[in-house]
């Protein structure tokens, strides 16, 4: 009789033991990967992708909690989702590094372009007509060039400080301004040449 009760108890224990275990290792790994991606500023450089990974992690964790609330727990789905989250977060780390490198290259190239434009503009200023309008324009252009050069210096400081996104906006604006000045000077010089 005792033996049979033991069999029954074992059967019941099996029923409960058959419940899945919380995928703690996958949870820890997914959280660690997301934290690492944030540490490399994926949230700044790839915000949409980082948001998607974070949403997926939240969804997986909600599913884990939902399963915990059940008699018969099945963690397979959230477990797979957590594995996917970890893989995506790892990929995000690689992609963030690539994005930063691409930004650095773009900034370096644009800064060089701006510096070249400033030098070209200085050479054009010397050729610009010096009538009343030309005189006024030259004074204003020299001042604007001063602002561009100051913004280049500021951008270089930001670049060295690792503020790549703010730097790229600044150097793009500087390039746009320097290009506009160049066009203005070229037009004025061409107009003068046409008058001769």
């Amino acid at each position, binding site marked *: *009789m005792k033996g*049979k009760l033991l069999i*029954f108890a074992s059967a*019941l224990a099996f029923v409960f033991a058959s419940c899945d275990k919380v995928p703690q290792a996958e949870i820890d790994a997914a959280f660690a990967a997301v934290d690492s991606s944030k540490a490399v500023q994926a949230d700044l450089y790839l915000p949409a992708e980082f*948001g998607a990974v974070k*949403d997926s992690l*939240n*969804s997986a*964790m*909600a599913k884990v*909690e*939902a399963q*915990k*609330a*059940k*008699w018969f727990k099945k963690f397979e789905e959230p477990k797979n989702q957590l594995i996917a989250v970890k893989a995506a977060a790892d990929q995000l780390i690689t992609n963030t590094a690539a994005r930063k490198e691409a930004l650095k290259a773009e900034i370096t190239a644009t800064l060089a372009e701006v510096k070249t434009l400033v030098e070209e503009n200085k050479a054009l200023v010397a050729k*610009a007509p*010096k*009538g*009343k*309008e*030309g*005189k*006024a*324009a*030259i*004074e*204003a252009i020299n*001042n*604007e060039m*001063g*602002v*561009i050069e100051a*913004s280049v210096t500021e951008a270089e400081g930001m670049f060295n400080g690792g503020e790549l996104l703010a730097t790229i*906006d*600044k150097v*793009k*604006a*500087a390039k*746009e*301004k320097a290009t506009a000045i160049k066009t203005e000077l070229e037009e004025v010089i061409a107009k003068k040449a046409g008058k001769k």
Partner: protein
Amino acid sequence: MRKKTFYRAIFIFSVLTLLTGVVFGVLILLTENPPEKELALAQKSISEAKRAKAGEYAPDLFNRAESNYAAAMRKMRIENLKWIVSRDYDGVKASLESSINYAQKSIAASKNASVSVNEYLEKTYKRVDDRIDAFDSLIKLIPLPKSVRENYNKGKFLLSESKLAFGQKSMLDSKEKLQKASVLIFRAIDYSEMLVKNYFGAYPLWQRRVQEAIQYSRRNNTSVIVVDKFGQQLTVYRNGESKAVFQAELGQNWIGEKQYGGDKATPEGTYKVTQKLMPRQTTYYKALMINYPNDEDKRRFAEAKRKGLISKGASIGSMIEIHGGGGQGVNWTNGCVALHNSDMDKLFGMIDVEVGTLVVIVGSTKPLEEVLQKESI
């Protein structure tokens, strides 16, 4: 006997199994289901809110959505630690419903805010661009304190940055930069407008002086020289008629009357040529020395000194000439009027331009409205 015992055991086992099943079934029925649908809906709503940039446009509502979701998850973890039958997910559901509610509100608020930010940006860009179009050439022309001109150009630079951000759909960044830009630009424009308007307060006096000089020229069949500072030109009138116009360069701080020596301002008033200087007699090719300071300059200087408007040690200055060396493209003199050397030759070759010739220097020969209209074209 053995068989009987066996059947009894089977019976007991069956009854126990049945009872366990019933108890188990009752427990399952009594167990509350976790709010899975609400959880999924809350997540979906928050994700949508994030995509709608509710975190930027409606941060209060969005933060409430997120904090309610976090509270729901916390409550759920606490409930899950309890014995399964005594779990109660009502609190979890309430937090999730609040989260969904706030997330949806934040989406609507974000859409409204994004439309209004967009409208604000478009309107403000137009307003700032219109003012720049109207005043840019004026600002380029007049001598402004370095800081004002720098701030104006910084403002224009920030405006470019703002437009770049607008192009990248970073509306809030764009708005922040535009606000800073418009403050810098409008301050510089307002300052310039005020400076010019105040300056043109003397226009009736300038007009009278010029008319008197032209009449003098007509009456005496002689030449007079009129220097228009705003127009940056020197005109020679003979017998009341304009005979020659030359581009002129002035003192660096040419707006306003000369206050004292070294202020780099070109004086305003009615003067006479006192000397005609040939090369080697002057630093800048040829020159017509004028009688600055005249009696009116001396009176004004003394009054300014008495009122403490200029330092006690200041001198009135002298040696104001119309000289060569012009064509440098900037207003560079210390207060003199500079012409191109070839124009000085023409001026020297003109009949009646000699010692005693009247020289009238005024802020402008045209009214402010005309000047502004011209500068804004």
